[in-house]
């Protein structure tokens, strides 16, 4: 496997940005200044980035309630995201969506989604657009192990096969839907489900960028070439609670610590690229520093940004009414 230096740098930067963005959110949330529900993606960065590394703005993704990582990986503006989470006028959604609804169609980002299983049907539609408009695009649905039990998701697997859509269904399996384990809630296997709906199945280690990158390349190439949809099952772990405020008593003590110690995608990436001589540690350090600055500025800017004007309340319900 050969990965261009530029791709490696960009991917590391994206993963680092997600990490820094979210760890900061964790801190800021605790101060009480961030309203609403916030679901952190920390620990799962390699999945979003390893998949999106193969995409351009011409390709479409749909995300979940745990959407920050997918947004950043797909190129949504970090400052705009932070402002959105603070509910400011300068947010990507002008403060009207918040964490669970960040979207940027100009980047092919069809939205985080507060509805579990909301994304897969939309992605059938985006894939249909790509196919019908013959623009060579693919459409990717990210969804969790929990969402894999939602009828919306299951129907979409079938529909995508029936219509032979250029779609990839990325199951981000972190073992939990809220406080319930996948070992309880998911009968059977994702692999058999893929077969049950007539599509190839692939799996990878979601804490290893290179594992995701390779599998995703194959899956996306397959879909893009017109052969139909693929399921990509990504095994990973989330580092924080389901949402900010969750004490995670359902997980054994030390589970997350162990993950952080031995399955940190950033550590792993750094070791791998430096030991193989692909990138220098200083290049990564520079990125770390730049990202820290970017996140810091995004918070300062968000807090200083104006609230939406009253007129925004009634605006943009319709294109025309």
């Amino acid at each position, binding site marked *: 496997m050969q990965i261009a230096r530029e791709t490696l740098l960009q991917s590391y930067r994206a993963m680092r940005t997600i990490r820094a963005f979210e760890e900061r959110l964790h801190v800021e949330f605790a101060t009480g200044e961030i309203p609403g529900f916030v679901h952190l993606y920390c620990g799962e960065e390699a999945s979003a980035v390893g998949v999106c590394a193969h995409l351009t703005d011409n390709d*479409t993704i*749909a995300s979940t309630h745990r959407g920050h990582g997918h947004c950043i990986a797909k190129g949504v503006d970090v400052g705009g995201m932070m402002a959105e989470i603070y509910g400011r006028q300068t*947010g*990507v*959604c*002008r*403060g*009207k*969506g918040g964490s669970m*609804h960040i*979207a*940027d*169609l*100009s980047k092919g980002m*069809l*939205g985080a*989604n*507060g*509805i579990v299983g*909301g994304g*897969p*049907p*939309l*992605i*059938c*539609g*985006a894939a*249909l*657009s*790509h196919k*019908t*408009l013959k623009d060579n695009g693919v*459409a990717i649905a990210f969804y969790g192990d929990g969402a894999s039990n939602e*009828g*919306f998701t299951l*129907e*979409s697997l*079938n*529909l995508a096969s*029936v*219509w032979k859509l250029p779609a990839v269904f990325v199951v981000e399996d972190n073992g939990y839907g809220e406080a319930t384990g996948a070992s309880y809630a998911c009968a059977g296997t994702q692999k058999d489900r893929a077969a049950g709906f007539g599509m190839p199945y692939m799996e990878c280690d979601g804490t290893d960028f290179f594992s995701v990158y390779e599998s995703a390349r194959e899956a996306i190439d397959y879909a893009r070439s017109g052969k139909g949809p693929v399921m990509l099952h990504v095994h990973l772990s989330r580092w924080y609670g389901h949402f900010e405020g969750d004490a995670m008593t359902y997980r054994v003590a030390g589970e997350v610590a162990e993950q952080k110690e031995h399955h940190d995608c950033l550590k792993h990436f750094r070791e791998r690229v430096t030991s193989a001589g692909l990138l220098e540690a200083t290049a990564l350090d520079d990125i770390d520093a730049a990202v820290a600055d970017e996140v810091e500025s995004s918070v300062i800017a968000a807090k200083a940004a104006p609230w939406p004007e009253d007129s925004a309340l009634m*605006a*943009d*319900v*319709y*294109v*025309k*009414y």
Partner: protein
Amino acid sequence: MSKKSFRQAINEALRQEMRRDPRVILMGEDVAGGRGGTSGVKDAWGGVLGVTKGLLTEFGEDRVLDTPISEASYIGAAAGAAATGLRPVAELMFVDFIGSCLDQVLNQAAKFRYMFGGKARTPMVIRAMYGAGFNAAAQHSQSLYPLFTHIPGLKVVIPSSPYEAKGLLIEAIRDDDPVIFLENKVMYDEEEDVPDESYTIPFGEANLTREGEDVTIVAIGRMVGMANEAADRLEKQGITCTVIDPRTTSPFDEDTILECVEETGRLVVVDESSPRCNMACDISALVAERAFGALKAPIVRVVPPHTPVPFSTPLEKLYMPSAEKIEAAVKNVMKQHAREVA
């Protein structure tokens, strides 16, 4: 101009828009019909009641897509396709089936634009049959437009005749917001003169099917015909009515209704949907708030009872509003006035 049935008017609207704009596509269960069948005939049905017949032949399988029985995924797909460059017309068959795909309408299509800060367009149309009178029983006879009207972000269209159906459907397809387009299943064979060429009827502009002096009747969809029939009879008895067809319940032409009530001072609302939180309530509330001073009598609603739609013919008749019931309601409203004045 030639006589066309409600069914033909809709078919023609779809055909003309598909010719005009290659981004318009059709999807739904058996909108063509026959895929995977042993005979190889791929346009076997053209919709369960033949409304989309022939469109596959003209536009091909890439633009007329049969779906599995998976409303959530294909209605969601319509939303996703609309947000990414197509203009899908998805057929839900019976509006009662919204129970299988409400999320895709309620939480996805209707809310994209607002949640995303104005940065999305979702030009999709969902066509579905509604209405009782077909002995189709409780799960295939509902008139669920109050649900859709309640949801900000949706537009809701209910044509009352073939002419209206064609113009409103073309408008719906060209509209950049999600539109629910409801077709009364009992009306498919009704005919009237419909222009052959393409035309649009704007949303949010009510149609006065007749003008009178005594009572304003607002009626929805198939009820417009009944209201006109009642008005005919009442005219012979010396009572003249204004009959308003709002055409779209969202957006809603409040002004026309308020102006007419200002003139007649009396209002009867006819709505075939279940009586609680329905359009009859909505219109009554509008007038009781904004034309109160003009009202000479209580606002009377002609609506079905708060029951599911029964199967048996005599019960279903009893259930439905009718010209007779509208006539009685108008007379009742006139009497109340008499009493007050006396």
